[in-house]
């Protein structure tokens, strides 16, 4: 029954339907053959019965003192031969039964001259097929109507029809049995293209939003078209969202810097301690918003660029040193020592330099942000087993139990960062870059205190 539910297997449904059709055809075959055979046998039997009746009627004669009825022994023998049928007859002359079974039912309408009339009627304990022939003979002075009835049971006819119908039923069952493997095969071949298409779609990467160009049968074209349309809409919606976020972030960032500048000027000019406290907290808020906007922009950029990844040769050493140099002023401001360890030799990887730079920037920014005053942030470049690794150590507050997976979720921050401004997007960006460039990203507590963040990228 499950096959008939809309959610059931299409294949089972198709097989079921094919089998039902085969069964219906087999049954139809049985009944068709049965009725045809029955009619054919009836026609053949009627012909014999009619001939016998006609022959008896034709041989009826009236002599001076008697009526001569010539019932032929051979005719009677033959009539009973087919199915050993029972025979009944009746001869009426002038409306009176002269011989035979006088209660054998006569026809409703008198038959035409010498053409036998056939009808089926119940008689005694059975049903008989009767042929009636009418004629007239001359008795004494004038013609007298004669009616000859010969009735026959039809076991023979039924036996023929049964045997033919049984043979047809056997053939029908044969068809049905043959239909089982055939319908399984045909259902299989019908669903092969669907399976192939599903495999082709299933093999795609998580960010592959190209149209599906797999060859498919005409019947699947609507599905394929719908799928491609959906993919296109999805792609459009995604890029729209990203563009929107980027633009929104950009539009927010610019006025925020104006607000910040104005607030700083106001802070410098104000003498009222209450106002200054408010202004400071306002500056902090604006800073956080600007940072969030900037991170959103970064994140959107990372998403966009990893979608349309361009892979060029990138020297990781160079990028790391550039980023370190860029953070020098910030580090100095917070009295954190920024140290880069490693050879000056180029470490080449393949990827988008902007993505790598963005990831590194977030890592270094985080390290500096959470470092107490007078501590060191170390950036270590290393290479092992065709993997390039950038490890950033700080002596900050560590992870306090949060895992890499926790911290790389969007807008999720550690439990111990309440006093530090942050958006919860920095590590997300790093992790996304690692995935896009087929590398890995990992966060660990350092035993002596602090955090170790390492980004690994495949070597060119």
């Amino acid at each position, binding site marked *: 029954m499950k096959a008939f539910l809309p959610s059931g297997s299409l294949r089972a449904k198709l097989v079921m339907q094919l089998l039902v059709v085969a069964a219906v055809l087999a049954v139809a075959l049985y009944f068709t053959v049965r009725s045809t055979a029955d009619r054919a046998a009836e026609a053949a039997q009627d012909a014999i019965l009619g001939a016998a009746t006609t022959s008896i009627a034709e041989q009826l004669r009236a002599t001076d003192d*008697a009526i001569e*009825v010539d*019932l032929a022994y051979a005719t*009677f*023998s033959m009539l009973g031969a087919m199915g*050993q049928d*029972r*025979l009944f007859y009746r001869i009426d002359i002038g409306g009176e039964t002269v011989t035979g079974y006088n209660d054998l039912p006569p026809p409703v309408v008198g038959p035409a001259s010498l053409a036998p009339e056939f009808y089926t009627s119940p008689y005694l304990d059975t049903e008989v097929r009767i042929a009636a022939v009418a004629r007239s003979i001359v008795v004494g002075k004038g013609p007298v109507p004669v009616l000859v009835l010969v009735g026959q049971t039809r076991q023979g006819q039924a036996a023929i029809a049964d045997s033919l119908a049984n043979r047809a039923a056997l053939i029908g069952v044969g068809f049905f049995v043959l239909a089982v493997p055939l319908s399984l095969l045909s259902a299989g071949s019908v669903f092969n293209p669907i399976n192939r298409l599903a495999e082709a779609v299933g093999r795609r990467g998580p960010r592959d939003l190209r149209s599906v160009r797999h060859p498919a049968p005409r019947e699947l074209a609507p599905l394929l078209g719908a799928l491609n349309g959906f993919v296109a809409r999805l792609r459009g919606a995604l890029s729209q969202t990203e563009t929107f976020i980027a633009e929104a972030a950009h539009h927010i960032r610019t006025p925020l810097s104006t607000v910040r500048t104005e607030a700083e000027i106001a802070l410098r000019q104000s003498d009222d301690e209450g106002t200054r406290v408010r202004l400071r907290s306002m500056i902090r808020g604006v800073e956080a918003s600007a940072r969030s906007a900037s991170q959103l922009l970064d994140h959107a950029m990372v998403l966009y660029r990893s979608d349309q990844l361009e892979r060029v040769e990138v020297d990781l050493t160079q990028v790391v040193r550039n980023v370190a140099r860029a953070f020098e002023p910030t580090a100095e401001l917070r009295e954190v020592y920024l140290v880069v360890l490693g050879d000056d030799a180029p470490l080449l990887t393949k990827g988008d330099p902007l993505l790598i730079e963005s990831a590194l920037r977030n890592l270094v920014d985080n390290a500096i942000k959470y470092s107490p005053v007078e501590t060191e942030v170390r950036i270590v470049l290393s290479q092992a087993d065709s993997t390039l690794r950038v490890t950033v150590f700080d002596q900050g507050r560590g992870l306090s139990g949060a895992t890499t997976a926790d911290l790389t979720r969007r807008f999720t921050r550690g439990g111990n960062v309440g006093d530090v401004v942050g958006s919860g997007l920095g590590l997300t960006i790093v992790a996304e870059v690692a995935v896009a460039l087929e590398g890995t990203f990992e966060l660990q507590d350092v035993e002596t205190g602090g955090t170790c963040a390492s980004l690994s990228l495949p070597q060119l």
Partner: protein
Amino acid sequence: MRQLILAAALALFAHGAAAFEVEDDRMFGAGTGAEISVLSTTDTEIFVPLIEAFLARNPTLRLRYVVASSQEVYRAIRDEGVAFDLVISSAMDLQMKLANDGFAAAYASDAVAALPAWARWRDRLFGFALEPVVLLASRRAMEGLEMPRSRRDLIDLLRANPARFNGRIATYDPHMSGAGYLFATQDARQTDAFWRLAEVMGRLNTRLYCCSGEMIDDLESGKLALAYNVVGSYALTRLPNAPDIVVIEPEDFTVTLLRTAFVPKAAVQSKLGGVLFDFMLGPQGRALIDGVADLPPLDQTALAPHLRPIRLDPGLLVYLDQIKRQNFLAEWDAAMTQP
């Protein structure tokens, strides 16, 4: 019900009204179980060994064996509806008519399924023994003459020796004997020589008998020289004590009667009727029927070429037709009674 019908039948019989005429009515076995009643045309003596063997095998049963002439058997079943469990008769035509008109119940068993097709009609009527219809001759009366081997021989013999055979030929009276009528009609159906023979026999003042027993008696006593169309088994059972009688199966064809049986629809113990019939068809029953009653077993492969079994089919109904019968008997009378 059966008791009631029997009682009714007996009452009718006592008043001498329509009840059928019973020739013999005997009870066999002392079992306390069911009672099988058989209506038969075969003399009780011939059936006794078979009945005893059957009861030896089924000791709880009792068997009532009623003998009547074939016409009376027909009347008992058709008109009086008397309940019997098995009806045995040598009058194939009447049996066929009863079966055709729906008085026989369907019966199926391995034994009846093994019968040849010509010896059964549907699942209603079954033959169990063959009875060649023969010519009997007295050796004394035929002294100096060659025994006839066919109907043609017989015609020639009678024509050549009218003095010797005048008044000394016998056959059944078809008016009185159903069997005689059946044999005569079968003869007439098979050969044109029959009417010639009838003419010759009529000219020689053929004596007409109701029953084969009397015919054989008179043949033995020397009153008769030839008896035409006699049921062979009657002669054969008496042959050891009557060395004078010769049995001749005409070589042109020997009409062969089937003794038939059916289980009537009105039977009370129809199952037991079938059991008895299966026993008759079984090896022991066959041996007894063949050995004691001298009825050749019904076996298609052993059928001699001159034996023509009368087929069990509706053709048998033809000569039972009243007009056909009148015409035939008128024809016969014309042949027998000659100026």
